C-alpha cells in the first residue's frame, strides 16, 4: 500500500478506533466490572458475575424471547416481501424509476421519524382505526394491547425495511445476463421455473447479505420500542437492547449492561454463522459460500 493510500485511510481509521474499536474493547472490559457511572470511583472487578447474573435473570430471558420473536417474525416476512417487490420491479416496463424511488423512500427516513408517524397511525383516533371504524369493525388498541403491541412494531419494521432490501435484491437481479434468461425461455422454461432455477440461485449471495444485515438490525431493535412503547405494555415489547438501556441509564448498572451487550454480540455472531452455512449449503449455489 502506498504512503498516500495509508494517509487516505488514516482519518477513517482514527474515527473507527476512537468511536468503534476502543468503546467496543472498553465495553468488554467493563462487562467484568461493577460500574456505576455516577460513582466511577467505586468501580471494581467482579469477574463473570455480570454474565452469570444475566443468565439467572428472568427479565433477561424474557427480553431475549421478545427479541427472538421479533427477529423470527420480521425476517421471513421482510425477505419474502422484498424478493416479491424486487421481482415485480424488474418486470416493470414503464415507471420503474418512480416505483424504485417510492419503494426505497422509507429507507431514507430516520427510524425516529417513522416511529412517530406510526405512533399517530396506531393512535386510538388514528388512520388505521378510522379505516376499521369505516368498515364497521371495532377500534383496536394497537400499542396498548399486550397482544398487539409487538406485532404492531413488527409490521412497522417490515414496512420500513422492505424497500431497502428490495432494491438490494433488484440490483442483484440486474447483474444476471439477459442472454441467460433468453436461453432459458427458448428452452421452454416458464416464468416460475426461470425464477426458481436461474434467478434465485443467481441472487442468493445478495439474499444471504440481506438475511445477515436484517438479522443484525432486528436483534438491535431499540428506537422503535423507545419511541412507541418503552418496553410495555406488561413488558410485551421489552427487547434485549431496550433492557440493557434501562439497566445502564435507569439503574446505572453499566457493567451489567455491557455484559448483556456482549451476550447479544456473541448470540448474533453465532446466528450469522449458522445462517451463512445454511444458505451457502443450499443446492445449486457456489457463489454464496
Amino acid at each position, binding site marked *: 500500500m502506498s504512503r498516500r493510500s495509508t494517509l487516505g485511510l488514516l482519518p477513517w481509521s482514527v474515527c473507527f478506533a476512537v468511536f468503534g474499536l476502543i468503546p467496543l474493547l472498553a465495553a468488554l472490559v467493563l462487562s467484568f466490572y461493577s460500574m456505576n457511572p*455516577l460513582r466511577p470511583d467505586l468501580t471494581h472487578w467482579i469477574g463473570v458475575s455480570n454474565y452469570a447474573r444475566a443468565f439467572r435473570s428472568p427479565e433477561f430471558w424474557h427480553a431475549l424471547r421478545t427479541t427472538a420473536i421479533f427477529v423470527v417474525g420480521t425476517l421471513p416476512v421482510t425477505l419474502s416481501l422484498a424478493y416479491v417487490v424486487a421481482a415485480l420491479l424488474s418486470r416493470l416496463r414503464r415507471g420503474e424509476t418512480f416505483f424504485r424511488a417510492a419503494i426505497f423512500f422509507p429507507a431514507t427516513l430516520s427510524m425516529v421519524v417513522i416511529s412517530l408517524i406510526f405512533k399517530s397511525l396506531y*393512535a386510538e383516533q388514528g388512520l388505521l382505526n378510522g379505516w376499521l371504524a369505516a368498515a364497521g369493525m371495532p377500534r383496536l388498541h394497537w400499542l396498548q394491547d399486550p397482544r398487539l403491541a409487538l406485532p404492531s412494531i413488527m409490521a412497522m419494521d417490515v414496512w420500513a425495511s422492505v424497500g431497502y432490501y428490495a432494491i438490494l435484491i433488484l440490483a442483484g437481479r440486474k447483474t444476471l445476463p439477459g442472454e441467460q434468461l433468453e436461453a432459458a425461455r427458448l428452452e421452454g422454461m416458464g416464468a416460475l421455473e426461470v425464477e426458481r432455477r436461474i434467478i434465485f440461485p443467481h441472487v442468493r449471495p445478495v439474499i444471504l447479505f440481506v438475511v445477515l444485515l436484517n438479522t443484525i438490525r432486528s436483534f438491535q431493535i431499540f428506537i422503535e420500542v423507545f419511541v412507541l412503547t*418503552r418496553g410495555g405494555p406488561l413488558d410485551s415489547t421489552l427487547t434485549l437492547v431496550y433492557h440493557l438501556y434501562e439497566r445502564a*441509564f435507569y439503574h446505572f448498572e453499566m457493567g451489567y449492561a455491557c455484559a448483556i451487550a456482549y451476550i447479544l454480540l456473541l448470540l448474533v455472531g453465532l446466528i450469522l454463522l449458522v445462517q451463512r452455512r445454511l444458505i451457502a449449503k443450499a443446492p445449486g449455489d457456489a457463489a454464496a459460500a
Partner: protein
Amino acid sequence: MGSRGHSVLGRALAVAVLALMAGGCGRSAGTKRTVVFWQFSPLAAIQPVLDRFKTEHPDMDVQVEQLTWQSGREKIVAAIAAGRPPDLCEVGSTFLPGLVADSTLIDLTDSIPDLMPTLRGWKVVEHRGRAYAIPWMLGTRALYANADLMKRAGLNPEDPPATWAAFARAVQRIDAIDPETKGFGMNSGEREVLFKKFMPFAWGNGGDILDSTLTKSVVASTQNIEALRFYLSLKPNSLLDRQEMLDEAFARGRLGFTISGPWLLRKLPTTAPELHFEVALMPRPAEGKGTPASFAGAEVLGIFRSSKHKADALTLARFLVREENAMPLYAATGNAFPAAAAAEQDTYFVSRPRDRVFVEQLRTAVAPPVHPRWVEIEEILNGELEEAIYGKKSAEAALRSADSRIEALLHATP
C-alpha cells in the same frame, strides 16, 4: 502527497493550532468566571433571566445548555461518568433520589438556611433531613373537565366533582352520552407514569408508599387498596392510553375528565379553541374525609461533587429561585410553578383562575419519598399497577405483591 500538499496541510494545522491557542488565551486572559448551567427550558425562555443575572453579576458569565426530556438523563450521567458535569444542573425530582443515593450531589443544607423559609418543595430534595438540591419549579396535576360534555350529561360544569362518589357518577354519565365519548382518561401503555396517576387517590385517602422512617413499605395498606379499587372502578368508562393521547382526546372533546398538568392550559386554546373546559382540584375520598391530593414533582437545582465552580453555581442557583426570576419562566413555559413562596401572591394568577387552581393543588400535592432505592421502588409499583390496570391482578393482589417486593428490596443488601 507532494511537498506542496505537505506545505498546505502544515499551514492549515498551524492555523488551527494558533486559533486554538488564541481561544485558550482569550479564556485565560478574561476576568469573567464562567458557570456551566444545564437546564430543560427553551433557551428563549431562560436567556432573558440569565441576561439579568449577568447584569447583576458583571464578573460572571453563564454557559447555558438546553437538555431534552428524552435524553437529558443520559447526558447528565455521561457527563458525571466522564468527570465533567456542569457546575449547576436542573434535575427532575424522580431522578434526584438516585443521585442522592450515590452521593453525586453535594449537601447544600448549611449553605442555604436563608432560603428555607422562602421556598416550598423542600421535601422533594431532602434525605435524612439534609437538602441535596434547591427547589426551583414545582409541578403538579389537576382535574380537567369538559364543560360541554358535563352539560350534555346533565351535570353542572361550574361544580366539578369534588368527591370520589361524585366523580365516579360523572364519569359514568358522560361515558353513557355516546360511544365516541369516554368518561375518564386513564393512563396505560407508559408504565413510568402509572404511580403518578394512582397515588394521588391513595395519598388523598391517607395512604402512602413508605412509612415516615422510610424503612417499611405501607403499599398494601387498606387506604391504598381502597383507593386502587376505586381507581380501577373507573376503567370500564375510561379511555386507556398514553398521556399525550389522552391530552389529545380531551382536546378533541372526547373525554369527560382527564388528569393533566398546566402545560395543557397553554396547549388547549390553540389546539382546541372551541373546547370549553374547567380545571378543578382532584376529587377527595368523601366530603370531610381525606384530601384532594395530587402528585408533586419538582425541577430542582443541584451541584455535583465534581462541579468545578461550586460557589459560583450556588450564586446562580440563588438568583434563579428568586420569585422575580422564576415567575417569567413559568409565564414563558407554563410547565411548573416557581418554588418561591412569594409567587403564590403574584398578580399573574389573579387574572388566570385556571393557573390558580394548580397553585392551590400544590398545597395538597404529595411528593414521592427521596429514598436511595426509589428507582427500583417506582419500577415495582408501576409494574404491579400495570398488572392491575390490565386485569391480570386484583387491586389487593397487586398491592400486596408490590408490598412484599418493596419490603424485600428495603431489607436487601444494596
